[in-house]
């Protein structure tokens, strides 16, 4: 079973914790979470959020850390190799295809969003985003920047700034990946994660000291802004809403980057007696600190201070981040500076995440196909580069990006996380897995978590996935009882569906088939080596 290859390890414990935390902290912490908390009424939302953290988020983190380190002992670092060890069946490696497909496809569009963040940070510092008091100007600027008005617009001579930033960001990602796990990812995250936290604290202090920015509207003050974010509504009535549970559990789930295939790969580079219990909890707590204590206190309160509730309600993640917030910062004293810091923070959060999405692919190409670092970096750059060009070209209404995010960045992640939870509790066996988790552990997990991980986590996960399918795929309306497939499904199956959405679905299938062929090739190679 053991596959003898040169093993690579993290150089320090804080390095791996910050790398995993960097992978988890992303745009969702600062843009998606505050919007959801305000939308569902913070009291009820936070109850569902913390229950999901304890029953879903932290257990799956421990599961991924444990399974990754366990398989790493046998010399495997890629998801197919890891599942080969865990399932102990030739078919096992094909389950691992998801663990490469998910980060690879997410990287294809995530790197574009990362480029927007760097672009907006530059525009903020150079005061190019001071576009006046009309939100339409900011919407127009953003649409033009990302090419959302028509396909291919991002490549035209007048709209190509986003592509320039994309080129820079893409090169940066592959530079750090080429440098390797310790000298690239770990070294970068050791600085980037503390810096992004520091930037978050600076921006937070600015927001909380704004007082009453407009004396003509005294109701728009910090106290009321925090109240808009944190005042609970009718908690018990809201807790009966299944959509709230779906939103809270989904936020925990996506925020912690569980089920991506990233944490399991990172953990495979631990030594066999390295702690996973405290390290996993530390990485999760770093993500929660950024999300609740920074994200929850900055974005929505800042927007409320200048626009009131009307400027926030119904805003999506991109709209809040790239339309509303630039205008908020442009109205704030020294806003260009603090706005620049905020978008720099988003850029750092995004690049530490995108780097983690490349490592599973690199690990697979190296151990599966026997490529060296230069070859694997070049091949991965080619695959992700083509995918990113597809996303950037089909930029109208960000349709390609949105379709890939829904089917891979959401649906596939639920499936992968469910597989991981079942593998830990039922295939490896809860007793063996529990013992494995506590190997070298610096603290013990309370015993009741054994039952939670075996029964509650998989059941909760499958229930949330079922709710997701019912509400977001099938489109069941609980009020009317009617079923109307959501736009994501309509785009694919209806006669007047979206050709771009269909092309995006085809891209996912082609990449999945290509990876499956590579995994089959890797399997034959592993059999020869271990025979």
């Amino acid at each position, binding site marked *: 079973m053991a596959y003898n290859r040169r093993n690579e390890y993290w150089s320090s414990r804080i390095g791996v914790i910050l790398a995993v935390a960097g992978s988890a902290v992303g745009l969702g912490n600062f843009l998606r979470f505050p919007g959801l908390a305000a939308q569902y009424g913070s009291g009820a939302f936070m109850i569902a959020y913390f229950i999901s953290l304890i029953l879903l988020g932290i257990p799956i983190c421990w599961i991924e850390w444990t399974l990754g380190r366990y398989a790493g002992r046998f010399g495997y670092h890629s998801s197919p190799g890891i599942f080969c060890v865990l399932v102990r069946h030739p078919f096992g490696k094909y389950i691992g295809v998801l663990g490469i497909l998910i980060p690879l496809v997410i990287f294809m569009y995530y790197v574009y969003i990362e480029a927007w963040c760097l672009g907006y940070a530059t525009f903020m510092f150079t005061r190019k985003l001071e576009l006046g008091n009309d939100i339409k100007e900011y919407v127009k600027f953003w649409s033009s920047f990302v090419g959302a008005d028509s396909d291919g617009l991002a490549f035209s001579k007048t709209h190509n700034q986003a592509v320039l930033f994309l080129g820079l960001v893409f090169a940066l990602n592959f530079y750090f990946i080429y440098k390797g796990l310790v000298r690239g990812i770990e070294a970068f995250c050791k600085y980037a994660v503390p810096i992004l936290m520091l930037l978050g604290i600076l921006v937070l202090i600015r927001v909380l000291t704004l007082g009453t920015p407009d004396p003509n509207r005294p109701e728009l003050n910090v106290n009321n802004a925090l109240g808009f974010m944190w005042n609970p509504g009718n908690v018990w009535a809201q807790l009966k809403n299944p959509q709230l549970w779906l939103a809270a559990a989904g936020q925990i789930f996506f925020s912690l980057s569980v089920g991506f295939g990233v944490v399991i790969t990172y953990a495979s580079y631990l030594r066999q007696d390295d702690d996973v219990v405290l390290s996993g909890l530390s990485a999760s707590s770093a993500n929660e600190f950024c999300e609740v*204590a920074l994200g929850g206190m900055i974005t929505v309160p800042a927007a409320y201070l200048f626009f009131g509730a009307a400027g926030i309600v119904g805003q999506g993640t991109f709209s809040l981040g790239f339309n509303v917030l630039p205008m908020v910062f442009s109205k704030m004293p020294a806003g260009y500076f603090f706005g620049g810091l905020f978008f720099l923070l988003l850029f750092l959060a995004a690049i530490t995440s995108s780097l983690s999405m490349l490592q599973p692919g690199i690990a697979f190409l190296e151990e599966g196909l026997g490529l060296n670092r230069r070859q694997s970096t070049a091949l991965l750059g080619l695959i992700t580069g083509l995918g990113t060009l597809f996303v950037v070209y089909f930029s109208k209404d960000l349709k390609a990006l949105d379709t890939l995010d829904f089917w891979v960045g959401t649906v596939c992640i639920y499936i992968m996380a469910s597989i991981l939870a079942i593998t830990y509790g039922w295939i490896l066996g809860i007793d063996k897995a529990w013992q494995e988790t506590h190997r070298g552990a610096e603290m013990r997990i309370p015993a009741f978590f054994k039952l939670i991980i075996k029964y509650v986590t998989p059941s909760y996960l499958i229930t949330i996935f079922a709710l997701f399918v019912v509400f977001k795929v099938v489109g069941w309306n609980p009020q009317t009882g009617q079923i109307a497939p959501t736009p994501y499904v309509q785009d694919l199956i209806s006669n007047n569906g979206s050709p771009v959405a269909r092309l995006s679905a085809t891209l996912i299938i082609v990449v999945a088939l290509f990876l499956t062929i590579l995994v089959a090739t890797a399997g034959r190679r592993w059999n020869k080596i271990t025979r």
Partner: protein
Amino acid sequence: MTLSGWIIMIISVGFVTGLFLWCMFRVLAYKPPTNKLHGIDDIDTQDTDE
């Protein structure tokens, strides 16, 4: 902001901040056990003669 809003904010922000600081303290304060290398003086032969 209402009293219940303050309570929810303080509990939520306090919990995640406290957990994060506690974890970081535990991680940074941890000293890995070092293997003691024994020198010739550490060897006790139980020989009491001379």
